[in-house]
């Protein structure tokens, strides 16, 4: 399976040789994507670039910053393994560098989620498997009204 269940029944990714560098970086708290010299960054990890099928890509760390492109709150748990987690938020994040990825939202109020809000990657480890999550990101604001 491309996934397995943790001891407490949560779905976990099972890396393969192509995707292992992504998970190795995530284990160190870094978000790492592939860059094609012609088509730019892409996600998820592939053996060849989905823009041109070239294989001369390289790995590159990205900021982990992005915005909430879409989200939902799963209220029922669409799998028995997930019912203990409900309600939980799933986010499609558009990274500052362009690619989209889907991950669980953490450290957030479920009623505070808004499409377009700034988010950043954070990392959790479960049974030695690194999991990418996203959380709201504080954006520095200029003081309003002047001193």
């Amino acid at each position, binding site marked *: 399976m491309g*996934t397995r269940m943790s001891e407490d029944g949560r*779905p976990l990714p099972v890396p*393969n040789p192509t995707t292992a560098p992504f998970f190795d970086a995530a284990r160190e708290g870094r978000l790492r994507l592939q860059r094609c010299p012609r088509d730019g960054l892409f996600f998820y990890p592939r053996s060849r670039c989905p823009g041109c099928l070239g294989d001369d890509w390289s790995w590159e760390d990205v900021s982990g910053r992005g915005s909430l492109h879409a989200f939902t709150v799963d209220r029922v748990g669409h799998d028995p393994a997930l019912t203990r987690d409900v309600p939980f938020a*799933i986010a*499609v994040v558009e990274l500052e560098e362009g690619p989209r990825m*889907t991950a669980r939202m953490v450290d957030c109020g479920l009623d505070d989620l808004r499409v*377009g809000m700034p988010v950043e990657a954070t990392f959790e480890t479960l049974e030695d498997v690194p999991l990418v999550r996203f959380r709201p990101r504080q954006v520095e604001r200029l003081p309003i009204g002047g001193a």
Partner: protein
Amino acid sequence: MGKREAAIAGLAEWAPQRRWDRPMFSMEAAAELAALALADADIEHGEVDGLVTGPVFESPMFAPSALAEYLGVRANFAEVVDLGRGLAGGHGLESGGGHRGGSLRHGPRRLHDRAPAAAALAWRRSGSRPRAHSRLPGGDAWGSPQGQFELPSGLVAATPSFALIASRYLARFPTAPETLAKIAVHERENAAHNPKAIFRNEPITIEDVLSSRMVADPLKLLEVVMPCFGGGAVIVTRSDRAGRGPHRPVFVSGYGERLTHKSITYAPDLVETPTRVASERAFQMAGVARSDVDVALPYDCYTITVLLTLEDAGFCKKGDGGVFLEDHDLRHDGDFPLNTHGGQLGMGQAGLAGGLSHVTEAVLQIQGRGGERQVRSCDVAYVNGTGGMMAEQVALILEGA
């Protein structure tokens, strides 16, 4: 007008049920449905020389020959089409009509002189509960991207995926919840006139939809299809052979299909669906205008699916779907009859046969067999099928002879 070489001559459709009282294997179901559909078309078993089917669960490998053998068909072509419920929404018809992809060039050969017929079958056997080995839509094995990059997030099913689509749409194009709820309400009213609809005796109101349980924000329970059991089949044949049958032939005069992604995460745009390209091709091929359509049968796994499909099929502009829905009456006797069988929201989603129900309803309406829900003077139908996460999309234009 468009392609008129192939026509649908007959059909079979079981009423969807929450519990199936006649346990049977896929091939047994195929045999039952084929016999019913051939009788409806008044075509002899010996005339059949092609098969198009969804998965054959008990014989997944070499399924076409397994089915040909079981049904006693000497087939000149046979295919298992893996397009989710998009298959049932018409892909099978394209194949059966000899129109699909490479077979477009070979259409006449496929539809050879011996009055061929093809049964496009769809059948659901499993229950509504996902089995352990198919926890991802499509069932992923080691190495699958979804298994590594989606499942661990908790995105394991269609409902949260379509909820993500709805979230994005509503952020870009604010739409009142009542407007989306109207789809479910009007489809349920149509279902009240379909003796086979699972919810025929359970009318709902806008307020019922809005107060139903939140499943995955912003989708509520009454905006979500209910999986159930059922099955369906259609007979596709040469137009002249169909013309000798008991029913008005229904031409497959336009079709299109489009696929760009599996997971909604990687859709080129969450709210611009592949239906746009598929539908434009279908309308162009048929030489039919949107205003010519007498009944629209868009796939409706969720209310949001209908809204996006109406826009991308070109019945209104992107972003205007809400206004379009507010302006039109979607009931069978309304000014824009939509999913007159009740849709899958009102009739039940019987696996792949749920998608096929949009085809069979189009045929029944064009043949004047709609009973209480018959649309007045129905000649042209738009049908759409969606497989996966707004991923595998098919559009058809069906026209009466």
